């Protein structure tokens, strides 16, 4: 009897326990991420330094406070933003393959950055004298993402069917990508290399001001999500059922476009395209928590996304060496096997 009772209470609290475990893991990953790098600094020293302000060496204070902590924060923010965008889109489109980039958001950001970096060289102008300000990149990316988003939204306003919107988004994405290809084809080697590196993604290189902007945008982007948790749950049964339960799918569609546009658009603009996180993390969260309830899934995916990006970034730093790998390559390299193994273990389509 007591055994059954314990079992029941375990079952009820399971999601909460899992969330707490995930939070602890998040803190550990953060410390691991900050302590690894070209110079290894122990987590104890970092904690001591952050809380007391006393550092063993001034250079370490520099490394930690102005380089590694912002980078780790960006990893957390990007992980949260991308995976929450992915979850929203997968639920809204009822499509397990939907990700934050299906509405052409990342291609849009890519276009903005490509125009900034490549057009000068493609049209024979020396636009910025080679060195490009990171703020300029972020602004160009945001502009590009918003441009594509607004066009997709105009279409979304005309079509009332989410599947059509998905296809239109994909088409926009490929059209924009081909414009980028044309630009790349005509541009010089130097500019092309810069753009290629941007397109591999990078979490580092952001100054504190930019991190604050990113924090602000992500917080704003998450507001519509919190406001429509119930609607996302209702959407699980499809648009018709959602309507019959008093949910307004059109309103939800706009909120989703706004939120994913802000989250994914801004992250892509600052960090370059980061693949994989948006699609995979929601699935992993669904498998671990075994639930479809978005009140749980949103925090769960956010924490998991942050953990995943922190760990991937730790790997990307190639601990002990001064070199770093592009984050976009690492997320897929590390993430793909994890997801494949999860998928093979469990019945994937049934879980969705």
């Amino acid at each position, binding site marked *: 009897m007591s055994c059954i009772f314990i079992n029941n209470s375990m079952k009820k609290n399971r999601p909460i326990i899992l969330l707490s475990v995930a939070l602890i893991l998040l803190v550990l990953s953060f410390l691991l991420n900050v302590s690894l790098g070209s110079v290894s600094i122990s987590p104890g020293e970092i904690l001591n330094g952050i809380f007391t302000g006393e550092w063993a060496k001034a250079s370490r204070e520099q490394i930690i406070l102005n380089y590694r902590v912002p980078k780790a924060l960006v990893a957390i923010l990007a992980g949260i933003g991308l995976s929450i965008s992915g979850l929203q889109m997968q639920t809204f489109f009822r499509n397990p393959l939907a990700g934050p980039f299906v509405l052409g958001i990342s291609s849009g950001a890519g276009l903005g950055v490509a125009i900034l970096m490549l057009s000068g060289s493609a049209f024979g102008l020396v636009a910025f004298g080679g060195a490009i300000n990171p703020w300029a990149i972020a602004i160009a990316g945001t502009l590009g993402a918003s441009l594509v988003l607004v066009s997709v939204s105009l279409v979304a306003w005309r079509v009332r069917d989410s599947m059509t919107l998905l296809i239109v988004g994909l088409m926009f994405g490929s059209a924009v990508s081909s414009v980028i290809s044309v630009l790349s084809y005509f541009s010089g080697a130097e500019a092309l290399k810069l753009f290629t590196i941007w397109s591999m993604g990078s979490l580092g290189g952001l100054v504190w001001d930019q991190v604050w902007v990113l924090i602000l945008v992500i917080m704003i982007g998450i507001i519509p999500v919190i406001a429509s948790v*119930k609607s996302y749950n209702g959407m*699980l049964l499809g648009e*018709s059922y959602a309507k*019959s*339960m*008093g*949910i307004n799918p059109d309103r939800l569609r706009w909120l989703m476009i706004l939120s994913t546009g802000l989250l994914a658009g801004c992250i892509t603009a600052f960090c370059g395209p980061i693949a994989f996180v948006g699609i995979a993390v929601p699935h992993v969260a669904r498998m671990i928590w075994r639930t479809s*309830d978005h009140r749980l899934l949103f925090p769960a995916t956010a924490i998991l996304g942050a953990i995943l990006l922190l760990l991937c970034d730790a790997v990307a730093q190639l601990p002990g060496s001064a070199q770093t790998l592009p984050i976009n390559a690492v997320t897929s390299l590390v993430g793909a096997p994890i997801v494949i193994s999860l998928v093979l273990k469990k*019945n994937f389509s049934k879980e969705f």
Partner: protein
Amino acid sequence: MGKAAVIGKDLSVGYTKGKLKKEILHELNFTLFPGEMTCLLGPNGVGKSTLVKAILGQLKPWSGSVHLSGKEIETYSNEELSKELSVVLTEPFLPGNMTVGQLVAMGRIPHTSWTGKLAEVDLQAVESALEATKITYLKDERLGEISDGQRQKAMIARALAQDGKVMVLDEPTAHLDLVNRFDIMHLLHDISKKQQKAILVVTHDLEIALETADKFWLLTCGLPMISGLPEDLVISGEINQLLPDDRFHFNKDRGRIESTISEFKFDISGPPEMVQWVKNALQKSGVSALDSSIRVVVDPFSIAYKGQIYRSVGEFVEGMKSRGC
């Protein structure tokens, strides 16, 4: 009769595609009463789903009106409507991860605050919906791991938990086995009586509908909708409107649809409930005419024909075929 839940008055609806206007339903009049289960029957493509959409307020009437609880349906907001009216649709997608309890709890979405947290009232509504559909034992099962029939009952429980006055079900028994079909229709009939709901079921199962429905709405191409007690429609022969051509007709004695082409005259004597099955087998086997009379005996079952005795219908039909009749 002042307590109708849904009243349609001269309702015409259709779809517009560019400049083309296609009217699907022309000036329909109908009434749906609480405490009654109404079955909507009609051939494919006649506009049953269109009518359902109009009742759900998803299609704007071209002319005429639909009133829900005395108020025109267009004046309801989405949220208000969801408290009056719940549906079970044919859409098959369901997240396999969700438990039956969670699914039924979704019916409370119109009643909860923006977070969707269930209050005591909501939990009670979920429990009673599970009880009414007799699936309390399934509460913690996942939707991906239960049978189609159980899932359909869970969908009905969800609609019930939504606690509207009207429930509309679009072919709730499609894809189900025979027992589940009877089970679900009886369940719906029960609910309409016990909870005084107005239930509209779109179905193609004429026989089960005859047994369970309080009212029939017959929708046929180009004719005004016929509504009435199923039995009245049978007696007046109006039920044959469902069968537009002469190939089939509704057999009043046997309560089912039969092929009209029965030019074969067999002279069979014996208890009528057995005679009809022998006749049935003969017609199917293509035996056209027999010169002598057939006698069916009950105990032990045997068929006598021209001095020969057959122990089963199968044996008899084989015998007739080999005679080259």
